[in-house]
């Protein structure tokens, strides 16, 4: 029993790992295609049909490029920075439920690596660790631009974590649980949390952009001011590791948003579909719906990147501290009052 359990989890983790890597790789392809589409260009179309082999070509290029470690840098921390960024970005996928319990070979298998009862706080902790990769790498480069990027990254992450945490608190008032699985189950059919928490979702998605360092909040690598920010000195695969970490973070935060606010694997009419297809193929449709939602969010990240220009640094801080935090607190108060009134009625 114990061995079968470990084996099951091992397979799940491996599948999830490969899936995350391939989604991150194809996000780079999608990003170029979306950029090209929005700018009325063709985009990558040489490697394979529709340029679909482009990520492989990029990966090969990253491997064979010369690795340069600056002589003035701190060698160990210079290597630790991108490794840490990549490592931490994977951790978040462990608590995300990708589907209902599925029946495989006469066994009920949960499509979630682990359902810890503090799942949301775990994600929050992993997100707050994400900044160490940037900080360590930026400092170890021994370059003023890198240091500036690292410092910006740290202060930006800390500022937006507060608003993000406050928007989650309002969500918790609605759901009454910290477990991802239970939150997903509560949003059965069409009872998605975004209907009850529209403002909370808006704050959360803005903070998600800031936490993943995406445009319009990519101040840590702002190339017009800081050359490349924290990754100025990086080349070859270490540079690739940072880039990959960013795309994995994007995937994880899309998945978190899909589960917390957009019902995860739930969709209207799922009961009818489940009873029609049975306990094996019904949840498969749910998983497909989940991934459609995730990809839609990833597309949204890209759409914003190629539409909105970058913020100035003081505007970023003003938005975080003077607009989002008061809004999030107001959201908590309003949610609490509404819940109390509804309960009393």
């Amino acid at each position, binding site marked *: 029993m114990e061995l079968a359990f470990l084996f099951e989890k091992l397979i799940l983790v491996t599948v999830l790992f490969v899936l995350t890597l391939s989604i991150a790789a194809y996000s780079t392809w999608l990003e170029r295609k979306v950029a090209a589409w929005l700018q009325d260009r063709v985009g990558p179309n040489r490697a394979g049909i529709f340029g679909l082999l482009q990520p492989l070509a990029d990966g090969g290029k990253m491997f064979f490029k010369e690795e340069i470690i600056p002589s003035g840098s*701190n060698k160990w*921390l210079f290597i630790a920075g991108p490794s840490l960024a990549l490592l931490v970005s994977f951790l978040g996928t462990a608590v995300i439920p990708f589907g209902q319990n599925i029946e495989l070979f006469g066994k009920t298998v949960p499509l979630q690596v682990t359902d*810890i*009862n*503090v799942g949301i*706080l*775990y994600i*929050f*902790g992993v*997100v*707050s*660790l994400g*900044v*160490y990769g940037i*900080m*360590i790498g930026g*400092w170890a480069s021994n370059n003023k631009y890198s*240091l500036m990027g*690292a*410092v910006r990254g*740290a*202060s930006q*992450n*800390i500022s937006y*974590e507060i608003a993000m945490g406050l928007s989650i608190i309002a969500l918790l008032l609605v759901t009454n649980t*910290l477990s991802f699985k239970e939150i997903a189950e509560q949003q059965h059919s069409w009872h998605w949390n975004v209907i009850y928490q529209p403002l909370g979702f808006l704050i959360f998605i803005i903070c998600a952009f800031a936490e993943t360092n995406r445009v319009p909040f990519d101040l840590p690598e702002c190339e017009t001011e800081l050359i490349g920010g924290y990754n100025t000195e990086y080349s070859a695969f270490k540079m690739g590791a940072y880039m990959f970490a960013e795309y994995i973070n994007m995937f994880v935060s899309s998945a978190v948003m899909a589960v917390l606010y957009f019902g995860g694997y739930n969709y209207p009419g799922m009961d009818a579909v489940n009873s029609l297809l049975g306990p094996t193929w019904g949840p498969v449709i749910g998983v497909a719906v989940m991934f459609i939602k995730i990809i839609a969010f990833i597309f949204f990240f890209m759409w914003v990147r190629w539409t909105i220009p970058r913020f100035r640094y003081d505007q970023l801080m003003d938005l975080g501290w003077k607009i989002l935090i008061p809004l999030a607190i107001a959201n908590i108060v309003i949610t609490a009052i509404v819940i109390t009134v509804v309960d009393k009625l």
Partner: protein
Amino acid sequence: MRFNQKGNTVAYDMSLFYFVAFLTILFSLLVIFTKNPVYSVLSLIATFFTFTIHYILLNAQFLAVVNFIVYMGAIMVLFLFVLMLMNLNEETEPMKSNLIKIIGVIAGVTLLVTLVGSIHALQTTGVSATPNSEIGLVENLGKVLFSEFLLPFELSSLLLLSAMVGAVLLAKKDKRTNNG
């Protein structure tokens, strides 16, 4: 330590505990013995991470994850932030005068004596299986905090709030002189 029915699980937990405790002591020694302040902070982060594992072993999941978020994710980021800006190096480390060294030794020895004395006086039989080993889970902890310990809980939040207001006041520009 979790109190499991099966003896082998407890033994497994014990060896895990000793391993993690060894790491905790190793990293906390590194904090004070490394010359580079950034290495010190990184070791301190590792120390806090081992604390998180200790909490999980004690079945206090909420405390574990809060320690993870607050100490590793927020406070240590700020530590690292400040250290990186100060640009401290091994070469620029200021030499401390002998007086400070002597004071440090006296303070350290006093602390050691106090700790040894208190451990000596400690009633080791007082530690036993808690009546409710699920107390560390977030649901039970929340119920206890908001009923039995409501007053201390609210008072400590007031304390934090006043500290926050104080920090904002300190950082604020002086309007009269306007040279902040």
